[in-house]
């Protein structure tokens, strides 16, 4: 009887230790693009790997290809619904009028800025000059130049990494769960993990106007959170990441004031 009780308690804990977190920030004056806008998506950076029994991530080429294709399809569908024209660039030499070096510079600058946003907005190293629920970063002149040369309104940078728990990892979790019977409870060895983030850059001002992170994971192997390889999983990822784009605080406040 007592052991059955442990199992129930454990199942509850297991469910709780699995979650999807998302947190977005926007420029104060940000309004989500709507209607007739041109969006440039730069080399979606997607990797899918297998989580080995021992906890290493083994990159998988076939899964990565499937996930990239699914995500691009989901992204096109989602943006078409908003009315935007989307161009997705897979390689740096695919953008007419822009050299691969120029594009590489913008990408690297964005990577550095994204890192800084994650550091100071998400990881707790808050800056006194960038407090509150607002986003105050810019790529500056480089991004404006890219916009002028190409005629795009926005650039979207997308990153997704997914770890699928291997059979061995799931078995390890099951073993850990079985151990609860003798008092050694370790089902939470760490299972599937998905980390996605996206940043939207306004190519008229160069500012990063919107940023979002989705972290989905389970401490218990075997529990899944949308598999990026499948069209459904990819659509779910795009929806979690880009589907609920909120306007900036100033815009929202103005909207509330209007309503009153």
């Amino acid at each position, binding site marked *: 009887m007592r052991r059955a009780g442990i199992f129930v308690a454990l199942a509850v804990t297991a469910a709780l230790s699995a979650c999807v977190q998302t947190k977005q920030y926007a420029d104060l004056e940000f309004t989500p693009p709507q209607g007739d806008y041109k969006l440039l998506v730069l080399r979606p950076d997607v990797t899918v790997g297998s989580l080995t029994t*021992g906890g290493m991530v083994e*990159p998988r080429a076939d899964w990565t290809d499937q996930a990239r294709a699914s995500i691009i399809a989901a992204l096109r569908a989602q943006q078409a619904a908003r009315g935007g024209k989307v161009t997705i660039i897979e390689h740096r030499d695919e953008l007419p009028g822009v050299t691969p070096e120029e594009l590489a510079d913008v990408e690297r600058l964005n990577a550095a800025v994204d890192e800084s946003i994650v550091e100071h907005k998400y990881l707790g190293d808050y800056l006194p000059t960038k407090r509150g629920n607002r986003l105050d970063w810019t790529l500056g002149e480089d991004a404006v130049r890219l916009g002028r040369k190409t005629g795009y309104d926005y650039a979207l940078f997308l990153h997704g990494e997914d770890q699928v728990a291997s059979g061995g990892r799931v078995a390890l979790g099951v073993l850990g769960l*079985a151990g609860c019977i003798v008092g050694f409870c370790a089902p939470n060895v760490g299972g599937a993990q998905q980390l996605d983030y996206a940043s939207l850059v306004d190519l008229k001002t160069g500012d990063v106007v919107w940023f979002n992170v989705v972290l989905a994971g389970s401490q218990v192997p075997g529990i899944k959170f949308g598999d990026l390889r499948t069209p459904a999983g990819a659509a779910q990822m795009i929806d979690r990441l880009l589907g609920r784009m909120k306007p900036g605080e100033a815009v929202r406040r103005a909207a509330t004031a209007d309503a009153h």
Partner: protein
Amino acid sequence: MSGRCLELTRRSLLVGGAAAAASLHTGAARARIRPQDMVPLVGPGFKPTDKDEQGLWKDMDRAEEEIAGSNLVIDDPKLAGYLKSIIGTVGGPAAHDFRIYLLRVPDFNAMMFPSGFAVVFSGLLLRMRNEAQLAGVIAHESGHFLRRHMIRAWRDERRKTDLFAIGSMVAGIGGAGAGVYLGDYVQLAQLGTLLSLFSYSREMEAEADAMGVKLMEQNNYPPIELSNIWEQLIGEENASAYYRRKHRHKGGIFDTHPSDASRMVDLRADAEELTVPGKAYDAGRKRYLSTIAEIRPTLLDDQVKLNDPGASQYLIETLAQDGWNGLLRFYEGEVWRLRNVPGDQLRADQSYAAAVAYPDAPADAWRWHGIALMKQGRPAEAKAAFARYLTMKPNAPDAAWVRQTMG
């Protein structure tokens, strides 16, 4: 219900594993890997067929794109062609599949990536005394690819971490069932796993050395030159450490590479075994020096500005074993001038004076020589030196100042 955490702290790991570490470290010495046992495991046009290796290669696509387009790449078609021709010579069966990139990093290093592209740091070009040494390093890197080291290391690590995860889980459950705590043993097992990963990596480095020396010999490079590189590196590290009043790192159980000294000794034995008496070997010193002639001032400049006078001075003296010239004397002066301890001013001035005696003295040697002469109260000679500087470098950023100083 009692739960135990599988996390291990670094501290407990080190304390718990000290005994095991000691016993491993005093174990039997590793046997030398013989060059004749090293046969390439891949053929021309190799493409991975296993899922894990395909994944590794896929991951490398973007890495290569990033490196190839990096601002650090030295964009010099002559040097790029030279490196490509060397890897095309000593690359074994994969010679024509390799890509090789030269990055401006003033450090002694070269590396091979799993999908067959190599990166060479500019600091390597500075340190190599002839083509044979450069070819030796490139052959060593090719050896990593030809012996499929990356995927073998990955599989080894995966297997060992798998075993450790299962082992510690079983130990936990078994221990809990029997009412004993096996955590200490789990910690020892983790240390053992870690140590065997490092030693596997050292074994692969030794394999690549053996493979590399064999490829050198097959292409008529004197095999002893690979061993000479390590002798030079040990000397450089000693000089650097001595100046900073520290001791050179001599190798330990957490090293991914065998110690420099053991590599030097093994490689010397390899070279003796492989060298065919009477065969004409060519170290290619002239070809090497003429190819890197244009970039050599930049290489020396980058090194001198690292603020590592011990290493810089040793390097310059090593290169000067093949003959002093104006460039090396000038940078010798720069090492002293930038170090700037009492007496260095005089040493620097002497080096600049020696530099301008050579026909290849760089313009800046004349500039600094002129400044030294001014300070010594020899304005006429200083004026001549400055004039020489301005002739060589008419658009020097400080031309106006120099003209004013000349009076």
